[in-house]
């Protein structure tokens, strides 16, 4: 959104336009209607879809969070949600923040090695390796981890077989750890892909200059590369933060027992009690969490924009 848009206005006038009578900013579509009217008409169906099937239910959910069964305004839903699920809210936030932090570190490491790695074979191998989870659906990842991380899963079996742990030490990781592992496993390639792409399009001259001055690769990564790709990294992290807040299958399959994530609680309120009030109150809490992150990003972006 920051790049200058190739609009009619800032485009140089074409030299070879026939019919010199038409002015240089003539419309590609037709002259009968102003350009922007056509634009709005063409965008309208897509926007209507978003408005009808996303914005309207979103608004309904926010409103329902503050409505009682009789339709009057109340804070009872929110109060009940906090009373029953405040532990789960903290649990959700902790899991998502921890997973985001791990994703950030791993994706910078992967992107950094892809950009600065000197051994071409290792770079090629890493490039081939890291992307696999990207297109593996969350639900498949959840099922995979459910069998892999279980007490009798392949991971423990191999650790026992390799003599690394005793059979009695084998423990199931199917609790918060399993959820974090699955989230990091699934989201790291996504952020790493974005970050590596941004790193690849950097101007290499500053990197080469720092290298000529004798800076180590870690220092180049931390002081030159990461600051320049920070906007991409932050956008990737925010998108995966929200994704992790939205994914219901992973906590449902890996960590269904309390404490669990609020997505599971929402489904439970609906399926077991038909309790839209508390479910929407929990939804409101999840919007608040996402909104908080968005707010931090906007503040960050404004400060950066101001510095530029």
């Amino acid at each position: 959104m920051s790049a200058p848009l190739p609009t009619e206005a800032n485009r140089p006038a074409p030299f070879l336009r026939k019919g010199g009578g038409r002015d240089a900013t003539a419309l590609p579509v037709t002259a009968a209607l102003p350009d922007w009217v056509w634009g709005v008409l063409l965008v309208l169906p897509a926007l209507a879809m978003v408005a009808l099937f996303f914005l309207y239910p979103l608004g309904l959910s926010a409103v329902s969070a503050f409505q009682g069964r009789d339709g009057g305004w109340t804070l009872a839903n929110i109060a009940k949600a906090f009373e029953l699920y405040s532990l789960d809210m903290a649990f959700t936030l902790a899991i998502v923040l921890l997973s985001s932090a791990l994703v950030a570190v791993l994706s910078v490491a992967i992107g950094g090695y892809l950009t600065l790695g000197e051994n071409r074979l290792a770079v090629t191998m890493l490039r081939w390796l890291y992307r696999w989870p990207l297109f593996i659906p969350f639900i498949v990842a959840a099922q995979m981890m459910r069998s892999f991380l279980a007490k009798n899963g392949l991971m423990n079996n191999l650790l026992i077989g390799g003599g690394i742990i005793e059979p009695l030490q084998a423990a199931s990781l199917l609790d918060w750890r399993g959820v974090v592992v699955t989230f990091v496993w699934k989201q790291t390639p996504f952020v790493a892909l974005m970050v590596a792409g941004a790193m690849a399009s950097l101007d290499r001259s500053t990197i080469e200059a720092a290298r000529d001055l004798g800076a180590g690769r870690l220092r180049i990564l931390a002081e030159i590369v990461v600051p320049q790709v920070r906007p991409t990294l932050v956008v990737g992290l925010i998108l995966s933060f929200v994704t992790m807040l939205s994914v219901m299958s992973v906590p449902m399959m890996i960590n269904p027992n309390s404490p669990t994530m609020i997505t599971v609680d929402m489904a439970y309120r609906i399926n077991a009690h038909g309790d839209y009030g508390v479910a929407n109150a929990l939804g409101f809490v999840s919007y608040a969490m996402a909104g908080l992150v968005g707010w931090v990003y906007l503040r960050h972006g404004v400060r950066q924009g101001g510095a530029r």
Partner: protein
Amino acid sequence: MITTLAPARALAWIPRGLALGLLAFVIFGPLTNLGLWAVAEKWYFPHTLPLQYGFSFWERVFAPRSNAMASLATSVTIALLTVAACLAVSVPAGYALARLRLPWRGAILLAFLLPQAFPSVAVYINVARIFYTLGLNGTVAGVVLVHTVHGLVFSVWITAAAFAAVDRSLEEAARDMGAGPLRTFFGITLPLAAPGVMASSIFVFLESLDEFTGTYFVGVPDISTLPLLMFNAGMGGNFQIAAITALILLVPSVGFMLVIERFLKADVLAKVGH
């Protein structure tokens, strides 16, 4: 010089090899586990590997009238309809965003990101509530609508980028030779942007195929897609059926991953979201 460097180079492969090996284990370990479950007839603690291999569960999954085949057909139908719905609204929208002067262009682009930028469970709960009054709950149409809104960010953003990457002078040349705007669009712009449009369709198709949460709330009780079938099998402790279903879901995902770079060129990728 060379003689002293060579061992140092070889030594550098020790940490490198360890790191790559660990990564390979982390990535392929769970996949291997899934693969083993798909061909395991008998496997219980404390055996490291299955006791007996076989394909009897595959026969059950691929039986012509099995639940899995019905779910696969439903999933593919929904995904194709979702692609059609997304293209129908996002080709015009993408063209307008790429070529026409639009008021609040940045805000319009952002609007398509919104369905991905909000935690979606509560939204789906309320979509289900609205659809219930409209009779759309448990119908293919209802699920397609939910998937379409979710996929719009891919189709609109990538389509807009694909149109923006088309060289404008070619369109102008066609116009100068007397082609009308529609002819220029269908003869020049759309064919040149086709790889990007194709890439966006692939993303939408995969999103729809793999979508779970929306289908879970809106599709009940009549629509069973592959992800729902897999979820029920996995939660029911039938790991073989779950693993085989998961593998069926993986085939298109991994296949498309291998070809996506052919469709999504760097010049288009650089314009996504701009």
